[in-house]
């Protein structure tokens, strides 16, 4: 706000949005602006601690995939996959290659479902100036129908492999309770081919959206696998040279509790904030994408790295192309495993797992006794890891746009938060937005 008079005057302005729309869950933003300086930015997570880590103690290892899946209705597969990999790591279980492929296929289903929902229902309205997806649909019915149908293909694949589309019930340590037949998977081919075309069209469509200029120097952190776009396995790498085994995660990353949030804030030890999720994955693993996904990236207007958080919508579209393309490859090559699950022999020990949830790496660690009872557990969801980066982006947004009226500034901040598709249910509930301006005008 430009000074208009020469008098000294302190003025406090408060912006408040009771429930921020188009995020999953509930949380809040608090910002304080004094004398044109942004003095405080807090991305608050209100949700009462849900005590999942404590709830797991004393439970059988076999219950972990189903208990942790309940943390989130949008990314239950991520929780199941990180849980089973961590426990298999502790017990030394070897997985049949066909089971490994089915796990990637299940993950593709979750990515298609989650990314389509975020692109069309939550994020796209921001760029086109619509308050919500319904208004977007009024002017762009074909695009929204495409998005809904694309999401449904993800749901259908999830139901086929997982038994139902949310909180699937077919995942177990060692594999699956039941493996699908070849013909069951073949029945998905036509709809996945349609979805692949729709995802390519999505990348082209979102590439044409107007993006605010931004290029931030993040430390990107993601899983990396030399032979495939990493989903379930690999090493944890960063854009600043980190390259560690999953077991070393806690040597390099830690969490701290801040008074304003019920979610722990993650940080890279000796450094600071780091970014996980589509931008990080894409920028670190571009070479592992399929040719069609790379082509979709070109048509969406992004290079082999992307550090504009607003273009995360394009990266999600590219990853949706990859997920459809890869799902078709898996189905084409599929031969059912001899057994749907490996034999699991319990032993005492500690195991870690890290997989790529739609919003970024999800780390699990379990300590188990000889009988396979969970002694303690640690779960680090991607939204907790991104909290510091989100706060940094919000600060930059406020500093760059201080002269905007409150209403527009609020909308910009909301958009910054939605760039991360924060799965606040994994870490929050109710997102309210509160900006306090303490302006001494006329100085």
């Amino acid at each position, binding site marked *: 706000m430009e000074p208009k008079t020469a008098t000294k005057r302190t003025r406090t302005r408060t912006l408040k949005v009771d*429930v921020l729309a*188009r*995020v*999953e*869950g*509930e949380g809040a933003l608090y910002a304080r602006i004094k004398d044109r300086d942004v003095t405080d930015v807090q991305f608050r997570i209100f949700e009462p601690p849900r005590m999942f880590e404590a709830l797991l103690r004393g439970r059988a290892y076999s219950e972990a995939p189903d208990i942790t899946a309940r943390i989130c*209705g949008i990314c239950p597969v991520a929780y199941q996959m990180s849980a089973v990999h961590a426990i298999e790591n502790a017990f030394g279980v070897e997985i049949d290659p066909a089971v490994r492929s089915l796990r990637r296929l299940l993950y593709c289903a979750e990515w298609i479902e989650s990314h389509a*929902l975020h692109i069309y*229902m*939550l994020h796209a309205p921001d760029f086109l100036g619509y308050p*919500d*997806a*319904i208004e977007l*649909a*009024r002017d762009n*019915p074909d695009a*929204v*129908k495409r998005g*809904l149908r694309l*999401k*449904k293909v993800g*749901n259908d694949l999830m139901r086929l492999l997982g038994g139902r*589309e*949310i909180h699937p019930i077919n995942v177990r340590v060692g594999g699956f309770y039941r493996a699908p037949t070849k013909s069951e998977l073949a029945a998905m081919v036509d709809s996945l081919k349609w979805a692949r075309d729709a995802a390519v069209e999505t990348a082209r469509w979102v590439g044409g959206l107007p993006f605010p200029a931004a290029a931030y120097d993040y430390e990107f952190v993601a899983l990396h696998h030399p032979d495939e776009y990493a989903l379930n396995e690999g090493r944890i790498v960063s854009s600043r040279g980190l390259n560690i085994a999953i077991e070393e995660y806690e040597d390099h990353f830690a969490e701290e509790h801040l008074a304003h949030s019920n979610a722990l804030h993650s940080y890279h030890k000796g450094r600071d904030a780091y970014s996980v999720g589509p931008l990080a994955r894409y920028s670190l693993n571009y070479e592992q994408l399929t040719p069609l996904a790379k082509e979709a990236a070109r048509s969406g207007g992004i290079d082999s790295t992307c550090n504009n958080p607003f273009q995360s919508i394009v990266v999600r579209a590219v990853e949706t192309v990859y997920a459809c393309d890869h799902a078709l490859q898996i189905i084409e090559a599929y031969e059912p495993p001899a057994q749907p699950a490996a034999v699991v022999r319990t032993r005492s020990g500690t195991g870690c797992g890290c997989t790529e949830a739609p919003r970024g790496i999800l780390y699990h660690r379990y300590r188990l006794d000889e009988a396979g009872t969970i002694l303690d557990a640690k779960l680090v969801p991607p939204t907790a890891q991104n909290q510091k980066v989100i706060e940094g982006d919000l600060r930059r947004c406020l500093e760059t746009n201080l002269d905007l009226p409150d209403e527009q500034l609020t909308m910009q901040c909301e958009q910054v938060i939605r760039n991360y598709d924060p799965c606040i*249910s994994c870490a929050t*509930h*109710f997102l309210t937005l509160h900006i306090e301006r303490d302006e001494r005008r006329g100085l």
Partner: protein
Amino acid sequence: MVEDFAKAEPVLSKTVLIIGIGNEYRGDDAAGIRVVRLIRARALPLPVVELSDEGTALMDLWRCSNAQVVFVIDAMLSGAAPGCVRRFEAHAKPLPTHFGANSSHLFGVASAVEMARVLGCLPPQMIVYGIEAKSFDYAADLSPEVEAATRMVAERIYMECQMFAEAADQSAVPAVTVLRSLFLNGGQEPDA
């Protein structure tokens, strides 16, 4: 009446869909789930679905079923007395905004209905029953007021299906039209 109903079941099973919405672990939020379980307990082959997912899944349900009449039952918070029941013909006009406004999910019932209206995929009849909640406490039972309301709503929907069955039997008149005129003229609106 029951005999007529039984005769029309093959028709009903294809043309009616009853969807109960809620989280059974959050007190009165389970009202919609309870209603469809009461209907299911009558052992009639009416298609009933329990849903705890977000609204796009709700749209998928009726789009894929091709149902002519869709009933949706959900808890609401409108400021009325707990257990108060309201019936809305959502195919005719938008639901009040308090439907789903308290959902922590992305897309509530009202949003799903409006999105379907915009995209031209609302069923010909979309009847929404709202039951005023008293409490959404974790792991709580239904409050007595809401419990009584769920029985009343289950009975109402059963009656509506019976009327639909009778209407479907009169082949000269399209069933949906007859059903609508029954509601318009028959004083069956429970929301005073």
